[in-house]
């Protein structure tokens, strides 16, 4: 298959984000609509039910560098969250600890990352983790 250039890919994702993806529990969009390079994105994840995260909305920043989608985006939580893959000092998601980032494929998208993070929140191994109070942030 032909390689989709970065800008086309991101436009595609932008449009998808605008329409809302999947069941709407994850969402993303350009942080600044004037940003023609489409580098900075906002994301939100609605905490999965039956977990500490239920009914919480987590905000993230996604940074799509110039080599996206050949390389994974950098992802960072704004809302405080306790997950093994999240650096507790900065909120950054450690790419080595989240499998979709560690084993990045060109076909993955920001949606892939958000969805996997949400799955992490729901996973049984992380369920027992104590979570910081709702609304606290890293920044």
């Amino acid at each position, binding site marked *: 298959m032909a390689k989709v250039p970065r800008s086309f890919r991101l436009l595609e994702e932008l449009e998808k984000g*605008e329409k809302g993806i*999947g069941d*709407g529990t994850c969402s993303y969009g350009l942080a600044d609509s004037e940003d023609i390079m489409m580098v900075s994105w906002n994301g939100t994840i609605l905490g999965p039910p039956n977990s500490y995260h239920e009914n919480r*909305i987590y905000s993230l920043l996604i940074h799509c560098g110039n080599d996206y989608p050949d390389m994974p985006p950098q992802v960072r939580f704004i809302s405080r969250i306790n997950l093994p893959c999240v650096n507790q000092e900065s909120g950054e998601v450690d790419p080595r600890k989240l499998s979709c980032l560690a084993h990045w494929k060109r076909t993955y998208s920001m949606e892939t990352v958000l*969805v996997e993070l*949400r799955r992490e929140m729901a996973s049984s191994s992380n369920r027992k983790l104590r979570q910081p*109070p709702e609304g606290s942030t890293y920044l």
Partner: protein
Amino acid sequence: MPEVTITIRYKARHKHTVSVDPEQTTVQALKDQIAEPTETPVELQRLIFMGNVLKDEETLQNYSVQDGSTIQLFRRGAPAAQPATNQGSTAAATDRSASATSPGTGGGDTPTPTTTATSPPDAALPNPFAGSGASGLGGAGGGMPGMMNNPMFQEAMQGMMSNPSFQQSMQNMMSNPRMLELMAASNPQMASMMTPQMRQMFQNPEVMRTLMDPNFIRGMMTLQSAMGGGAGGQQQSPAGGLYNPWASPASPSGATTTNRTNSESQPAGAAPDGESTDSATNPTSPPAGLQNNPFLGLFNPGLAGGMGGGEANAPGAANPAAANELLQQLMGAYGMGAGAGSTGLSAGEANSNEPPEHRYQVQLQQLNEMGFYDASKNIRALLATNGNVDAAIEYLLSNL
């Protein structure tokens, strides 16, 4: 600034559309406006759009809300802010019992509303049924943006168009005034554009020949693909609306699909034939006939302008949309078997309103038998390929 139409999505797969002026409307005002129809009190509403939690005092414009945008509404779990550590609160407990009634896998077709908190536990996988809800509104539309841009689909379409027997029957059909009446009657959008000129045009064999010319179709398709990119680049302008109509309601999918699923009982439609045989032999050559086609400009001023200027011009948008709509109607009508009459047409329309998992039931089963077990992926592939199992397989394999 004029009003735009936006969609509020709530309770996993419910939708409500509202018209607002993004410049004037604050988030607070929007919440007031949707509280009743969505049965969600303002104080429990949380709105999310493109990665932002919308703040009450901001206007929608500040969040770049525009025509066709979808805003997600979540219901706050408990009225009082829950202490983070208090996991066993009653509110959470009730939510949990509610979620127990929401099946995690299959029962997507039950219309019972589930609360936002009760999306299936495995919602990490995008819920196929929720996704399909997106397409519920306009029938086959919504859920498959980019369908017309899908190369496989284009190829199939081109194959069909270059099939002489197809052209023949198309022409027969078009020369029958009754057929036009029927088509007009079956779709209000069609009716509105059935001006006398239009009618005349359709009854002129010369025009029809040009319209059905494979080169012309190919040109249109190429334009559409091009427009996909172009309009995408103009997210901030109203041109976004230009992009959507391509995947608009009453796209041929509904009709062709019915054709497929009923193919046992129905004499094999020519559409599948054309698709399977001709697309193989039909070389996807560049749109040679594009430049010298006199009707392109006439039929599609907006598109032509959009291409020349490299930017979509909004005023023209209605026109190509309508033209495209018409084209899709024609194809749809053909899919039902030429001259099938009003019953056939309305059946096609009704069917295209079904959720994809119904519409593509047969295809889904086939895919399953072939070892593609991921229902959500299967549905996505079928939507993208318009229910063509062969193309869907190719799609699935190429997206592994």
